[in-house]
């Protein structure tokens, strides 16, 4: 009997939860705010679905009822991707070590 592909995806999902669990516990508490902004940015990979939805043009109609939702989702996800990664970068650039010559 063949295994349903859903089971494979479920396996990836469950294993990723465990990976996430251990990786996130190793994040230093001082970086918890950048952690939130970067997780926010990467969860916008949902843009993949938005692009498929937007380009699903049937009968040459660019703005069909389904693709409009795709375009709207692209805008939202793009705000998040750029905003999330850039604000994370801006924050991380501020974390500096003690200057050695200062002691």
């Amino acid at each position, binding site marked *: 009997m063949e295994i349903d592909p859903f089971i494979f995806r479920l396996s990836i999902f469950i294993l990723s939860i465990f990976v996430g669990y251990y*990786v996130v516990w190793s994040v230093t508490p001082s970086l918890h705010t950048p952690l939130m902004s970067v997780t926010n940015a990467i969860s916008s*990979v*949902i843009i993949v679905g938005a692009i*498929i939805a937007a380009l699903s*043009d049937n009968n040459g109609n660019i703005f069909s009822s*389904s693709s409009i939702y795709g375009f709207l989702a692209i*805008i939202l996800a*793009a705000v998040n991707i750029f905003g999330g990664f850039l604000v994370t970068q801006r924050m991380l650039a501020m974390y500096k070590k003690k200057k050695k010559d200062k002691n």
Partner: protein
Amino acid sequence: MSANLSAILYLISGVLFILALRGLSSPETSRQGNLFGIIGMIIAVTVTFLSVGNFTLGFIYVLLFLVIGGSIGAFIAYRIPMTAMPELVAGFHSLVGLAAVFVAISAFINPEAFNLGTPNNIKLASLIEMAIGAAIGAITFSGSIIAFLKLQGIMSGAPITFRGQHLLNALILISIIVLVFYLCSTQSSKLFWILIAVSFLIGFLIIIPIGGADMPVVISMLNSYSGWAAAGIGFTLENTALIITGALVGSSGAILSYIMCKGMNRSFFNVILGGFGATDQTSNNQNKEQKPVKSGNADDAAFLMKNASSVIIVPGYGMAVAQAQHALREMVDTLKKNDIKVSYAIHPVAGRMPGHMNVLLAEANVPYDEVFELEEINNDFINADVAFVIGANDVTNPVAKTDPQSPIYGMPVLDVEKCKSVLFVKRSLSPGYAGIDNELFYKENTLMLFADAKKMTEEITKNLD
């Protein structure tokens, strides 16, 4: 592009996202981690373009909308002050939630585009995944909007409660499950729209009873939800990158919520059921005025610190409100010039979101190796000469260790009172968010500095010279 190749590339982008989070284990590797995240995103988007392979006019529009959204995002990212990070993150969560809802709607209207069957005859598994993704996405959206409004101060931070609230919420949650069940058996688009509407409503209802002080838990929780919503859509689209990311973000948010709850010694359900901060306000107010308090001025504070050999700074959200972090750093610079050892002690729930205080200090050019977490520094208070509490309150209250009747009993607190002397910068004796009096105010070794945090810090710096 073949389906197998694109699946492998999506897997690679998922792995890059894991490395992005892994990088955050230390500030040195974090910037590289963020780069991995960006590369992962570029791969995912490019692969999607190539596998759809539809480079017609629609593609131009996709790029156009990408640029519009991207410019808005970049503009916000550069302009946002660091004190407003909690609002920003809450706002961004709402966008992820709404994007998930839109993708689910689009997949429901036009399932052929996603290989999910035909309208009114969508594969059962896909329909369930889609419904779950849409429902969680909608909850994330409306919940984050409320969190945003509360953080921004547009909506009062006070918990909004009414009779039968929990019963109503429970009924709505049950109705969501019933709706998903009927949606799957009838494929009715009407039910799909009702499901989304009801999910918006419940997201709104579960956040309004939660008070302003619990926002760190709420933001983390919504972070987690946005992840589960993405994972739900990932299953619908059979996309590995989305499934991995959803799981990562979901567990990340859950862990942060747990850490925040532990920092307040409250159970997750206690926070969610809400209403904290509304009670106990009156009970402690009577005996407050009778107890003597020692208060001083900037001159006294400067004198104490000048004669100290080590000082521990305890910043809280009040510091951010007064925008005192830069003034504080200047004061610390002056102290260091006088060979006084200075370190910072951060409580897990200081600020309005996890790690918020650390970012604010980093922005004021405080080196991160001078900043310590509660467990790292709590044993040092006994050897320190001066504790300088600026904008923190409940997290220093010794009552949490001594009085089992207190609402914050059992909450881990910074052992500030063990210092030889405590300088407490505060506008007045009013209680903090927990609504209880701070015993620290009345201790022998405490000197209250009644003033605006920024002004006081600047004056102390002047007096130190």
